[in-house]
């Protein structure tokens, strides 16, 4: 495993291009595009203001940089460095910006969610979508990029509009039986749309592409409901994480619950492996100490190392009692993700913040629990194989695969607190992001 040196970064804005060849990162006004493997700078663009958001177009040819404060979006081309495009939303303001799947349209959401403006880079045409709903996940594209679903709110009722992305024509428009629609998500096959209600009510609605209600699911009535949702890559399963610390998995044939995955604070099952991260003080080899000590050696001396130990079940995990009188309590399953091969599901229960739960979907059983020293900040599956990368806000990155798990210390001096990570689409490198820096981690291929 190799690590690049640390590069400067602002606002956690570092992205691999969808084709995995380039890497865009922002430092204040500047957008830096590097080669993903050599990390040599390919292009350098300067924006009008501090960049708040960047996004690659699907064909990896354009990068949009949004500056919400100024209400402008700037688009840069990799092929034509002198090509430029600036979109100004004017007095309407800007809160969100994104590419359409074809990479030729930009959707800007104005302040107060007055409308979504669809700017085309091919023609001068501008389209508007009125009444978009201000919610967590109000716009969703199918994976094949053909259709877009938009959550709308009119007359105190929720609606969903399905557009054809090619010409922004409205295909379907239907109301949903929700109190306050909170999010929508297409199944990877693009034929089923999951819509879920606000956390006050546990409700998932499943719509067909043609607007038919396929099914609705309610696990319980009064307590706080859904916190997170994830489709399996095969569209076979829909995992629903909720505030009751459980994940429920629905199947795609009957849309009924297959199983309920509980997240107890004590793991008693003998079939579950619990990896516990433990700190170990570095052993100093006095003979190899040189004077003056090299910087790397010094830093390694003062930084504690850690490794994984296999805990003997039963294990009780660190549990945070949620504060009841606060909004958005830190309880329930807030993060969940399927591995690319559908075999594993990684979850995080927010009131056991140091643990990642990895479930075997074939057996529908808890397979592994990773108990970290610090709070889990982010985890992401390798897009090519069942391999999970976890970061906890420390300078270590944790990798799990069915073969086992490792702790990797990011070399280098200084404090590098990894708060986010993202895999390259080809799965052989990983971007590690901290507040001010980023580095790229290259993983050896399996043959070596």
């Amino acid at each position, binding site marked *: 495993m190799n690590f690049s040196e640390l590069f400067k970064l602002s606002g956690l804005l570092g992205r691999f291009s969808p084709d995995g060849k380039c890497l865009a990162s922002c430092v204040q006004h500047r957008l830096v595009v590097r080669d993903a493997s050599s990390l040599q700078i390919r292009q350098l663009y300067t924006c009008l203001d501090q960049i708040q958001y960047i996004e690659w177009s*699907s*064909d990896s040819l354009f990068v949009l940089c949004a500056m919400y404060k100024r209400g402008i979006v700037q688009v840069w*081309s990799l092929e034509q460095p*002198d*090509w*430029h*495009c*600036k*979109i*100004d*939303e*004017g*007095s*309407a303001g800007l809160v969100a910006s994104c590419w359409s799947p*074809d*990479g*030729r349209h930009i959707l800007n959401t*104005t302040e*107060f*969610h*007055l*409308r979504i403006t669809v*700017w*085309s*880079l*091919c*023609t*001068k*045409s*501008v389209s508007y979508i009125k009444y978009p709903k201000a919610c967590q996940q109000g716009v969703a594209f199918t994976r094949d990029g*053909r*259709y877009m679903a938009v959550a709308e*709110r009119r*007359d*105190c009722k929720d609606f969903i509009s399905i557009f*054809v992305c090619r*010409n922004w*024509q409205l*295909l379907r428009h239907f109301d949903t039986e929700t109190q306050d629609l909170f999010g929508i998500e297409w199944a990877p*096959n*693009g*034929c089923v749309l999951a819509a879920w209600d606000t956390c006050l009510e546990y409700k998932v609605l499943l719509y*067909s*592409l*043609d607007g038919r209600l396929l099914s609705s699911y309610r696990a319980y009535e009064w307590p706080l409901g859904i916190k997170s949702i994830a489709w399996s890559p095969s569209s076979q399963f829909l995992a629903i994480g909720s505030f009751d610390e459980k994940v429920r998995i629905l199947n795609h044939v009957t849309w009924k619950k297959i199983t309920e995955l509980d997240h107890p604070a004590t793991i008693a099952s003998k079939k579950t492996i619990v990896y516990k991260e433990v700190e170990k003080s570095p052993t100093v080899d006095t003979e190899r100490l040189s004077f003056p000590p090299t910087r790397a050696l010094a830093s390694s001396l003062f930084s504690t190392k850690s490794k994984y130990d296999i805990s003997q079940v039963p294990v009780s995990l660190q549990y945070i009692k949620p504060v009841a009188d606060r909004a958005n309590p830190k309880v329930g399953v807030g993060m969940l993700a399927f591995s690319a091969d559908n075999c594993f599901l990684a979850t995080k229960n927010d009131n056991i913040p140091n643990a990642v739960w990895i479930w075997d979907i074939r057996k529908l059983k808890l397979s592994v629990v990773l108990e970290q020293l610090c709070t889990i900040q982010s985890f992401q599956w390798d897009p090519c194989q069942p391999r999970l990368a976890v970061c906890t806000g420390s300078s270590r990155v944790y990798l799990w695969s069915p073969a086992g798990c490792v702790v990797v210390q990011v070399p280098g001096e200084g404090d590098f607190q990894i708060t986010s990570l993202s895999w390259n689409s080809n799965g052989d490198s990983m971007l590690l992001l901290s507040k001010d820096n980023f580095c790229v981690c290259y993983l050896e291929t399996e043959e070596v």
Partner: protein
Amino acid sequence: MGDWKTVTVPVLSPDSKNTLPYTSERKRSPTSMSSQVLRVSLPSSKNMHSFFGAFCTEENIEQSISYIDRELTTLGFPSIYAESRGKELNLISIINCMNGLLVLQHKNLRAQEEVEMQHLKLGSDMDHLQNCYAKLKEQLELSKREVVGLQERDRQLQSKNRNLHQLLKNEKDEVQKLQNIISSRATQYNHDMKRKEREYNKLKERLHQLVMNKKDKKLAMEVLNYVGRADGKRGAWRTDKTEARNEEEMYKVLLSDYEQRQKQLLLENAELKKVLQQMKKDIISLLPPQKQKPKERSEDGLVLSDQEEDIGELNKENMWELSCETVREQLTNSIRKQWRILKNHVEKLDNQVSRGHSGVLNEKDVISRADHELETEKLELEIQQCKEMIKTQQQLLQQQLTCDDDDTTLLLQDCYLLEERERLQEEWRLFREQKKNFEKERKSFTEAAIRLGLERKAFEEDRGAWLKHQFLTMTADCKSENVTTPSAFLRSSDPDVCLVKSASRQKKTPSVLSPTVSPEPCQIAQYITQNSIASEKPAAHNMPNLCVESDDKEETEECTKSWEDSGVGTLLCRNLLMEQLP
């Protein structure tokens, strides 16, 4: 025991006649009864004497007699006068009367005793009952208190329960109220939310108008040049045609998705069918050994025929491709049937296995089943007999119980039994002692007998030696003189040699003999003289055996003398001798 008899017998004889029916009724030995009578009568006789002394004097003897006569006649005894008018007393009648009176007296005394005993018993019973009564009273008091306590507790609990019920009701009311409040608040909240949202929407609309309507110079896109579409096509106009095409495309997407899903399902189905087919084949291949059995039973005939049909069907491979409903039904039915057969088979196998575990035992059981039945029959018969016996016994017991239901008699009986038992034990002890004595005597006697035997042997030897010596001397001194004792020579020519031998032997072992042996040589002379005289008489008979017997008698006479000194009865000695003789 002997002592008892001698004392009691004279007293008993007149009494026993009267007491006999009474005692026989109780199944009591006459001896024990008589002893009872004897004891009771002794103290009472004294009282009688004193009483009579005061009553009759020299002067009023006539009156007394007449008075007694009267009294006796009133009591139902015959008159004591010889004749009805005469003044002469009939002594026999008097004695009979006396006896009668005495018997009466005894009876009365006994009755009195019984009554006293009963009284005592009743008194103790009374005490006991009073104690019981007191205890029970206490218990009653205690339980009453307990009951009161429990009632109090019950009352408290009930009141508590009532309170709790009240609380529960209150809580329920509270919950209801709260629910109402929540729901009202929720509706209020929703209403307010809607109102706010409407306002917000209005504001948004207004803002929209304001922002959008105004020719916003800033709202613009600056592009160096428009780029081509990713697919390289030109953008199409929005028309109805495109709309229709969109619809079409959407359905195409959906259709393709469904098609894909159907393909998956078909694949899955095919695989499952393959598995099913395989299973069916396996089942059929498993079943043939089973086939023979169902044929025997008429019920399974149908199933079997079906099964055969199914096998036929199975051969038509294309049947599997017909996934229409009728075929499906057939398929499921056939599978079900086969499955049932298989299940039966497996169950049977299981049974066999379980039987196999205890196979040897079971076989034994099978063999002895007939025996078992026989045995059970026998046992049943026996039980019947036993039952009958028990019944008769019960009846007898019942009868006995009904016969002497009188409690006092039972008690008395018990007393008698106890006494008798004690007496018997005493006797037994005595007997034991005697027996021990006898044993001791017998031992000493046997010892003496052995000793005597030895002595006799020695004596015989000596005599032999002496005779020999004398003979030798006689022959040596004057051969003509020897005429007086020819029989002795005739008799003891052979045993003499033995005697010499034994004498020499005796000399070697003097310690074996008792100390009385040592003075023997002195006595021997005497014996010899006696014997020589005695032996001359039987010698005429020429019977050596008799001679020995006579010797024995002499010895025993001696023994008896010594035993008489130790004070043991001759009879026993004789007995012992009798034993010793053979």
